[in-house]
Every structure is written in structure tokens, then in C-alpha cells.
């Protein structure tokens, strides 16, 4: 075990005046308290800004996506205005796998950064595609809103209409492995 100190919920972390509230902590009265159990990290204090205290969860840092979180999911339904998908994992490489999928939506105007008016949902996603997207809002009562309007976001894995595996061949197209059939997608930059 390393020498980092472990905080427990309800543990006092010091007065608010000399510490900044970070993730996994809360303020009660004029003191800062831990709200989850995990290793305590303190950022360097400068003369103007007090140190930032935060607690990380020992397994993954997030339980639910926040605004700005990159997520991985599968397209479940499409219509001309939006594509529904279920978030399966958090992080750009799926570091935190969710126990249950979360519903989310990519609206037509959030699919691509440029030429928004020319984008169509059927020309970007198909049911079953694995997509990488970033959460842009907590959304409505059901679904999170997500966007693929960046180079590294979009479809990362796709299966053709015939049921064959496909590989990306350009920013806009996937091609069947060993075949010549091409299908239009919003392709994520391959890394």
C-alpha cells in the first residue's frame, strides 16, 4: 500500500477558508468533509489559491457521465431528427463499464462540426453501430444528449447491411472487409 491517506465519508478535511472543494467532498458548516471512501489527493497550493482537495473512487472515477465525459455506446434506434443510443461505458477507451446501459440521444445538428445542414442521420449511423461520443448535456427526463462533432468521435465499429464486419476507409465511409460494398457513416478518427 502506498502512503496516500484514505478518507472515509464524514471525515473532516479542514476548514473551507484554507481548502478548495473538489470531487468527492462536500461542505458542511465551515468545514470540508469527505463524501466517498478513497485516496485523498491535494493539489499544490499557491499564494492566492488554496489547495484543492479531492477524493477518487478506488475503482474508476465516475459512476454516471457528466457534461464533457467521453462515452462509448451502441445505436439502438434512428429517425431523421436524432439517433438514440445506449451508453455502455465511460471514458474514450471504455475504462468504466456500466452495470446498466444509460439512454442517450445524438441530435442531427450534433453529428458533425461542419456543414451541419447537409448531415443526415441515416447517412451517419445505423442500428448496432458502436459510437464514441461526448456528453454535452444531462438532457431531458430520459436521455443524455451527446455529440459526435469532433474528429475523434463517431462510429468506431460497424456492421454492414449484409451483416459483415466493416473497416473505415475515409472520414465518411466504411467498407466491408474483403468486399467492395461501402456504407456512409460519421467515422471516428482511428487511433
Amino acid at each position: 500500500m502506498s502512503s496516500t491517506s484514505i478518507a472515509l465519508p464524514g471525515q473532516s478535511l479542514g476548514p473551507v477558508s484554507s481548502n478548495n472543494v473538489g470531487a468527492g467532498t462536500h461542505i458542511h458548516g465551515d468545514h470540508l468533509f469527505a463524501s466517498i471512501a478513497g485516496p485523498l489527493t491535494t493539489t499544490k497550493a499557491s499564494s492566492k489559491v488554496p489547495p484543492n482537495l479531492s477524493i477518487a473512487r478506488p475503482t474508476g472515477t465516475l459512476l454516471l457521465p457528466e457534461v464533457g465525459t467521453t462515452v462509448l455506446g451502441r445505436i439502438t434506434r434512428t429517425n431523421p431528427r436524432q439517433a438514440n443510443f445506449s451508453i455502455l461505458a465511460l471514458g474514450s477507451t471504455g475504462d468504466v463499464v456500466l452495470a446498466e446501459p444509460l439512454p442517450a440521444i445524438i441530435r442531427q445538428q450534433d453529428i458533425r462540426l461542419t456543414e451541419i445542414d447537409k448531415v443526415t442521420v441515416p447517412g451517419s449511423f445505423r442500428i448496432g453501430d458502436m459510437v464514441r461520443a461526448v456528453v454535452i448535456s444531462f438532457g431531458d427526463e430520459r436521455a443524455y444528449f451527446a455529440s459526435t462533432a469532433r474528429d475523434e468521435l463517431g462510429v468506431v465499429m460497424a456492421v454492414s447491411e449484409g451483416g459483415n464486419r466493416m473497416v473505415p476507409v475515409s472520414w465518411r465511409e466504411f467498407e466491408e472487409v474483403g468486399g467492395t460494398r461501402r456504407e456512409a457513416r460519421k467515422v471516428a478518427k482511428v487511433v
Partner: protein
Amino acid sequence: MQADRRRLNAPPGGTAPPVFATAPKTKLQRPTRTREPDQHRKLFLRTGIVPSASGSAYYEIPPQQQQQTGLLVPQSSSLKITCTVHGPRPLPRNAAFSPNLLLSTHVKFAPFATRNRRGYVQNASERDLGAHLETALRGVVIGERFPKSGCEVVVTVLEGEEDGWWAGNAEGRGGGWGMMGVLAGCITVASAALVDAGIDCVDLVSGGVAAVVQAGTDQRGDDGVVAIDPAPSEHDGGIRAACVVGYLQSRDEVTEMWMKGDAGMRAEQLIDEAVKAASLTRAVLAEAVKEAVEMKLEKVEGNAVAAASVKEGKGKSKDVVMTG
């Protein structure tokens, strides 16, 4: 309660396990309280026992002393409770929008948990325990951090505390004193499981129970003693009143209180003693939670080392230039 029609039900009365050939002169001895009135029984708590749940914990008050007689049936009951936490998970499709975490609790006794066999469906007393547990936990969870999601706390009592000594005439008497001890255990184990699931809490909530017990049956006008963590089978004089609290030690707050019986002038003292019992339980709770975090961190570190060695072998991946 309507009968459960889907399963083969046990007879409704008590089903004592068979007592195998013991010498006819075996004398049953009522267990007695050997510890001080302000001493808690030793207890065992561990988190992370159910891999498929987001958080889980197991709580046990094992038998404190070796049984003297050659009986196979335990003379005194011990408490065994498991708790699983599922969540935060998305709300069901038909649920309305909720800006914070929706907590739901279920307490269920296993059919074999007590000498009186329990049904498979929740009965009124179990639902009641669930409601008490929910109030205890609601005050501790920071719900605003999990909008649009729900969290389910499921407590299964594998072995429950009896309301009295089974071999005495106490069995028919009931009184529900065992339930108080069970609720205190439920609060502690649920708190451990919530922290294990990584759900934000303002504090660790621990359950404590205290009771006004009478020293003997024949002492009329006996004032009784306030004892913490009463085992109903050990008090043949009977329990006059009992109190359970869910207590946040670092905030000095009580989120849940349940008092039963006639405490008379001692109501306040009873609450104080219950709080004392809860602070004793918290020491175990904090230790168990800390241990679990250390174990998880070790595991994560081990995984990181393994992943790093794999990556080194593969070499660095190159950026791909795409056309189109």
C-alpha cells in the same frame, strides 16, 4: 397476509429443527448476559462480497460463547445480514423526472432466518423495517449528485434475532424485541454497502440499540438497567423498552429513531445509550470500509502494472492518416 400460491409453503407454525438423540437428562440452560451493560457484542463486517452488485456487505454477530450442552440446536440466536446495493441506475421508462437519487429499500428475512418460518413474500413487519431503513439512509445519501437515477438497497436477513429464548415460554410471547437488533444491523450493513458502491454520503451511518432490561422475573418494582445491544434470549426478566438509532457520529446527528415499549423516565437515557452503541458499531464500520478501499487500491495497482507490461510488448501505435 394472503398465502403465496406459487410455491410449496411450509407449515405456518414454528418448525423447530429436529433435536437428535441427546441424553434425557440434558438440561437446557438459558444463555445469560456475561458482558457489562455498556459492552457491545463482537461483530464482523466485510464489504464487497457480491461481485455482481455495485456494492455489498455482510454483517454478523457470531455466538459469543461456546455452547455447553451437547445440543445441535443453538441456544442463543446470532445475527447474519447481507446487503446489496444496485445503482446508481437509470430510472424505469415510465418514471417521472427526478433531480436527485431515488432510494428504495427492501428488507427480507430468509425463510429459515428465524425459528418461526418466514414466507417468501415480504410481510408487514419486513416492509416496516424497510421503511425505517429508508429514513435512516435518506438522511445520509447526497442525492443531488445523481440526477435521473435510482438506487436499490436490498437487505437479506439470513439469521434473525429471536424475540426471546426458544426453549422457555418466551417463544409465544413475542414482543418484537429481536426486530430492534435486526434494524440496527440493517442500518450498519446498508451504510457499508452504500460506501462500497461509491455513492456519495455525508457520513457513515451506524445503527445502535439499547434496552431497559429487568434483572429477574420475580423482582417486582425492579427499576431495570439500561443495557446496550441486548440479546433478547439472554434477558429472562424481559425487556421493557428498547430504542434503535441511526447515528452519524462525525456530525452528531440522528437520522432514524425507533423506540418501543414503556421507557418511562428513562427515555432520554435510553436514546443516549443507543447512540453510544451506534458509536461503538461505527468503529467496526469505519475499519471495514477502510480495509475494503485498501484492497481495491491494491487490485487496481496490480492491474495497472500488468497492463503496462502488456503495452510495452506491443509497442507504440502510430497515428493513422485518413483520406476522403
